[in-house]
């Protein structure tokens, strides 16, 4: 297992570095006078020269890149260029929790819905149930997340006042209960528009296991009940495709998070990235983009580890 993780390390580092480089290049080529926007009304040529020197703005591209990289690797994320000039590490710290919670809950909701509905549609052996499940998945996968969010928000929060309205409550301010009750609804939206892919993949896998695999026939011949057959045998063997989808989805989810944060007014990573790029706040933008890349890469590693845990063949091959 350890060897597998170590083997993946170079790849992961390359992807993170590449992402950082790409982000750096984008920020570099963006037109617009950073110095002027920082100084605003206090603009004087002297102050401008000073700031340029401070930000290494006069240096060539590669020098600036490597000096940023050196700072980043040694944990110096710098301060935001935008007043009130917070530490970037603080900004990240504040933004990580809401987004992390949303991704975690959203992913759990998606997996539970995806696996649950797939099992329901296959195990019920009922055409109608199957059709209904398929229809739900089609609807959810065909409505953009923000539309779903807006409509459900209007319906559940404004009209029926069933869920907490927009906004984010930090656990320090309102306690964990308040915090979770606010993050649950946006997570649900995230889960709703992610689960259909999982359901389809899982359902296809379930069907192919049940129809084609000899070990299923063998279990049936022994008189093992369908419930036990599915839960003890088939579920685990069907989960590998699902894992792959989870890994691929992580990157897509981050995009969805930006939109959902915008709708619900949640100050998470998506908002941080959007604002910092928009305001040319290079330190904050680079740090947050690179963090997302690290997150994506680590999530994919976790998926591979889960693979190895679930499949003894992979486990043995890895060690």
């Amino acid at each position, binding site marked *: 297992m350890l060897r597998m993780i170590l083997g993946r390390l170079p*790849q992961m580092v*390359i*992807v*993170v570095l*590449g*992402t950082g480089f*790409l*982000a750096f290049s*984008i*920020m570099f080529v*963006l*037109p*617009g006078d950073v110095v002027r926007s920082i100084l605003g009304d206090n603009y004087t040529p002297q102050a401008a020269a000073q700031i340029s020197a401070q930000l290494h703005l006069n240096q060539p591209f590669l020098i600036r890149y490597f000096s940023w990289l050196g700072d980043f690797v040694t944990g110096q994320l710098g301060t935001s260029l935008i007043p009130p000039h917070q530490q970037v590490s603080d900004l990240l710290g504040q933004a990580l929790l809401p987004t992390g919670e949303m991704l975690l809950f959203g992913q759990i909701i998606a997996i539970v819905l995806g696996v649950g509905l797939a099992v329901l549609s296959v195990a019920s052996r009922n055409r109608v149930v199957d059709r209904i499940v398929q229809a739900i998945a*089609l*609807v959810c*996968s*065909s*409505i*953009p*997340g*923000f*539309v779903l969010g*807006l*409509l459900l928000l*209007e319906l559940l929060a*404004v009209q029926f006042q069933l869920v907490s309205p927009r906004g984010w409550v930090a656990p320090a301010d309102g306690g964990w209960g308040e915090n979770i009750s606010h993050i649950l609804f946006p997570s649900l939206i995230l889960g709703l528009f992610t689960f259909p892919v999982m359901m389809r993949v899982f359902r296809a896998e379930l069907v192919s296991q049940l129809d084609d695999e000899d070990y299923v026939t063998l279990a049936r011949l022994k008189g093992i009940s369908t419930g036990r057959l599915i839960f003890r045998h088939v579920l685990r063997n069907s989960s590998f495709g699902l894992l792959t989808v989870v890994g691929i989805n992580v*990157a897509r989810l*981050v*995009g*969805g998070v*930006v*939109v959902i944060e*915008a709708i619900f007014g949640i100050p998470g990573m*998506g908002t941080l*990235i*959007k604002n910092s*790029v*928009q305001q*040319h706040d290079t330190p904050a*933008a680079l740090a947050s*983009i690179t963090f*997302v*890349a690290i997150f*994506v*890469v680590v999530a994919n590693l976790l998926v591979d580890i889960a693979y190895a845990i679930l499949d003894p063949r992979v486990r043995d091959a890895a060690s």
Partner: protein
Amino acid sequence: MTTATPTNTSMIPTSKRGPRLRLYRARAYRKPSVIVPAAILLFILLACFAGPTLFHLPKPSVGNLSDYLLPIGSPHHLLGTNTLGNDMLSQLLVGGQITIIVSVGAMALGLVFGTLIGMIAGYYERIVGAVLMRILDIIFAFPDIILAVAIAAYLGPSVINTIWAIGFFNIAGFGRIARAQTLRVVRMDFIVAGRSSGISGFSILWTHIWPNIAGRVFAYALIALSYAMMAEASLSFLGLGVPIPTPSWGNIIGSNQSYMSLAPLLIVMPAILLFATIASANLLADGLQEKRASTIE
């Protein structure tokens, strides 16, 4: 860009399979799960592109504030007007044009570049392949919203820029599919034989590998189209995509967001169109896939 897809499609089955097979295939398409979504898509396409001229609709953004929020069925405004007095039918149909152009364009961008990269990565498995794959991984790990934000913030949002922003991220998806399929095909005997007899790589890629992976790639194209459509809508909704006053389904929803309680139809109508289009694309993808399975049988 829009016409590239259909022309290529007609090229897939030609190489070695005879006309009989193609006839058979055409017949296999003739079933409800293919025809119904295809018909809906065609209808939406026609309505959006021919509708405004056909029905002499006013331009989408020339409304008069005195026509503020006219209800559905008003004279001259079949679907009413929005808060600026713009004709909603015109907004929806022209908005549809924009949404369709952007998403088809972005999909085509991903299709062309992603497939090319993926095929090369799959064919030259070793160094070139590894390098290209890492590049695809990087594009993949890069939150797609960033480029859009950057482009919108500094080049200014526009239809073309939105196509670039979304298309760029489609490259990774197509790249993965094309690479996986190429890897599958490359191991087949006739390719191995061709390779060892010294035929040039690009000639093999084009004449042998492409025809064998085109089906899967185009099947993915429909899915990518529905992703692109959602991405366009999301970006425009955030104000990072198609800029107002040019309407698109996404920015119609975005710009009317604050009137949700006052005039929910302003949001519901474009949402329904968006849903119908994406759902049809998804259903069509399913229907075609189903056909593929039964053809093999």
